């Protein structure tokens, strides 16, 4: 029996333990805080309750006595708290506090904690935080003001509070912190219009703990144009006034502005050809109008850039020429208007300058560019023009313009056919000599001779010793060089193209070389030495790097064309006997180095 009862008791005890019943667990004191150094509160955390209803009690002992007191107030600060009112609170006195948990099964004591009120002061948050937007010379700023927590007695100096303020723009991550010290107002100046700002304030006693942050105060800064608005209005009005004045000025001076920006094409300053003179057959006088007494300066003229355009009409046009129009005209074209310091761009339409348009039948399509040398081919069969070659726009409608300035006071030049270097880049005024290569026929002999004579006559002022053999088609020959010894080196213009190619480096294909023949030179006699360029239709010149070879190959190509009959006067420049060749092709055997001036 006894054993059974003991066994039952044991079992009940064991059963009780297995069910979790027992003395309570150890509570722990969390912290104690005093908001104003006059009262304080302690909180604890209970341990396990052992499964039974547990009560907690707080006991304390002040250091200057041994009396054990119990907590006077468990309610005011909530559950598991003990509130010491101001009558029970002493500062600079050590409180030894213990919490006891009690249940049916027993009691448990927490660890004792020493508390001195002077070191646990943590005030409440500042109150009545207000933010207002104020203006300083047109710029907004925020004025933040607040009050101390109402419980803290600052007036008597019992507590001295120091404040901290933090602010940020809505959307930012970082707070900007400021320390106003003991003041209760603060100004925030770095404020942008139209943004929302958040402000928080907290405080602490001079040797205590920081309070919590006050609830966030938000403020939106209005679009602050007050100060700026007047400025914008002023700027707007002023700028509109300025614009109006400018428009008015422009309007008033519109005519002169037009004149300045888009200058009209000046008329020709040269008298050009007098058609009356031409009609009268007075060729000398005709050309005299083209001369300017003081030009060109003798020493400095760039002979190389003169291109003398000489053309000889073929028999087809000879009839039209019968009227006495000049057989030979010198056309000078200005390469590009922009370089032309002298006026003369507008001489396109000058009737004085231009020879009868009717003479130039199918040139129009050939002339598209400015730089061109128009190969004019008298024969109508030549529909194609070497269009790849640059045509001068000045040639408008197939006319070539002359610039007499190149001709006038120059020492008489003999036109010698000499290939000309690519002068297009250099000098702007070229005189292209247009050589008309007319098919040779017996009929034309007479014309040719006439042409010769006429040429000579007409050019007596300008060119001495210009001799052109009549050719079957018109061609442009350009002056490559004006030699001081009265020689003009002429070169068919197609050469230019090739020269271009040469400059660029190496091979070139000239599609239109057919109309040009290279004038090798003009010998002391009245001979124009021409290198046979391509006189055949559609001949191509293959150019190679080697100049000599070029020439030869050109000539070789030329030779292949049999269908063009031209007469080329070829003469070896260096004194070989002149050879008048009555066929269009130059005999390659007789083609030679360029005569050097």
């Amino acid at each position, binding site marked *: 029996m006894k054993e059974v009862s003991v066994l039952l008791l044991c079992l009940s005890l064991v059963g009780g333990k297995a069910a979790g019943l027992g003395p309570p667990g150890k509570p722990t004191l969390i912290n104690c805080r005093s908001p104003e*150094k*006059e009262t304080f509160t302690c909180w604890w955390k209970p341990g396990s309750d052992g499964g039974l209803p547990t009560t907690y009690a707080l006991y304390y002992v002040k*250091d*200057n006595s041994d009396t054990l007191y119990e907590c006077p107030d468990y309610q005011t600060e909530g559950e598991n708290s003990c509130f010491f009112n*101001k009558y029970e*609170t*002493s*500062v*600079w*006195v*050590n409180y030894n506090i213990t919490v006891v948990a009690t249940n049916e099964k027993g009691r448990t004591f927490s*660890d*004792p*904690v*020493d508390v*001195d009120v*002077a070191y646990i002061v943590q005030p409440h948050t500042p109150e009545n935080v207000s933010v207002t937007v104020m203006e300083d010379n047109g710029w907004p700023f925020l004025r933040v003001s607040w009050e101390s927590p109402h419980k803290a*007695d*600052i*007036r*008597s*100096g*019992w507590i*001295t509070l*120091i404040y901290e303020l933090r602010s940020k723009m809505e959307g930012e991550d970082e707070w900007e912190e400021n*320390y106003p010290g*003991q003041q209760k107002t603060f100004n925030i100046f770095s404020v942008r219009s139209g943004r929302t700002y958040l402000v928080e304030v907290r405080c602490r006693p*001079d*040797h205590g703990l920081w309070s919590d942050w006050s609830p966030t105060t938000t403020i939106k800064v209005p679009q602050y144009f007050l100060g700026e608005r007047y400025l914008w209005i002023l700027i707007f009005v002023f700028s509109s006034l300025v614009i109006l004045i400018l428009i008015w000025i422009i309007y008033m001076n519109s005519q002169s502005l037009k004149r300045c920006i888009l200058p009209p094409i000046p008329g020709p300053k040269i008298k050009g050809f007098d058609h009356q003179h031409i009609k009268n057959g007075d060729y000398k006088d005709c050309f005299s109008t083209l001369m300017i007494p003081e030009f060109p300066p003798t020493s400095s003229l760039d002979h190389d850039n003169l291109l003398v355009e000489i053309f000889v009409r073929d028999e087809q046009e000879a009839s039209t020429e019968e009227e006495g129009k000049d057989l030979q005209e010198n056309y000078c074209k200005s390469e590009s208007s922009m370089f032309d310091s002298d006026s003369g761009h507008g001489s396109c339409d000058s009737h004085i300058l231009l020879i009868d348009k009717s003479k130039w039948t199918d040139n129009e399509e050939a002339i598209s560019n400015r730089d061109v040398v128009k190969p004019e081919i008298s024969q109508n069969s030549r529909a194609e023009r070497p269009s790849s070659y640059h045509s001068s726009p000045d040639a408008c409608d197939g006319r070539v313009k002359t610039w007499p300035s190149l001709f006038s006071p120059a020492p008489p030049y003999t036109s010698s056919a000499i290939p000309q270097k690519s002068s297009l880049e250099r000098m702007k005024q070229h005189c292209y000599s247009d050589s008309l290569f007319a098919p040779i026929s017996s009929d034309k002999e007479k014309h040719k001779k006439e042409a010769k004579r006429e040429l000579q006559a007409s050019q007596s002022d300008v060119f001495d010793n210009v001799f052109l053999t009549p050719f079957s088609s018109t061609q442009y020959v350009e002056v490559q060089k004006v030699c001081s010894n009265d020689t003009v080196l002429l070169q068919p213009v197609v050469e230019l193209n090739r020269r271009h190619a040469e400059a660029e480096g190496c091979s070139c294909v000239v599609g239109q070389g057919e109309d040009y023949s290279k004038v090798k030179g003009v010998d002391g006699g009245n001979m124009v030495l021409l290198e046979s360029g391509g006189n055949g239709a559609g001949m191509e010149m293959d150019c190679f790097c080697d100049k000599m070879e070029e020439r030869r190959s050109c000539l070789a190509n030329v030779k292949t064309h049999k269908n063009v009959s031209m007469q080329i006067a070829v003469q070896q420049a260096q004194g070989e006997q002149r050879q008048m060749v009555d066929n269009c092709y130059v005999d390659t055997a007789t083609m030679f180095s360029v005569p050097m001036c």
Partner: protein
Amino acid sequence: MILQETSLEDTDMDRSKGRKLFMTVLCLVAVSGALPIADLLDRAAQHSDRLHSLSTLLTQEMDTHFPFMEQGTTPQPSQCHTSTLEGPTDKVQALQVSEHTLMSLLRSLLQSWAEPLAFLSASANTLPHPAHSSIFNKIQQLQQNSKSLRHGLDILSARMGPAAQVVSILPFYRNDPGDKISKLINLQFQLNCFRRDSDKIDSFLKVLRCRSGRMRPDLC
């Protein structure tokens, strides 16, 4: 703590200069009577504030190396040699006590710590503490600070009347335990006592400052 930081940033030179200036000013002022007491008290309160910050730092530095001196085992303040000096222990009492009594109390406290600080500074030199040189340094500063404050309070009390002149200096018993650990513990205890007393001094001076400057809200 801002005040602690500012006091730490002070160099010795600045402090001694400031102190000398303070003393000169106080002397002149005491003679001329031009400076109002409120400003003198303000200046004294700043001194005591710095003093308290220093002593708090010092005790924290001691505690970091010897965490066994926890709060539970800290000797009771009643064991401090100044515990016999009765003073107000709450606000009500503090506001009731007259200025002279307060001033007298303050001066007694400060005076009572003059000798122990000197003793502690001497013993700190040979402390078995890893940061003993820094501790020694701080105790030196404590000494100088309390000295200058003492002088200031002397001048102040001279302006306040004979009742403020009563100073009671409490005896300090040098207990010089043989072993070094006990020395350490004793030092720590003494510094804690001083820390508490400096807080008292600071609080009372601020009360006095606020009380004397009724027309100047910036003082309170």
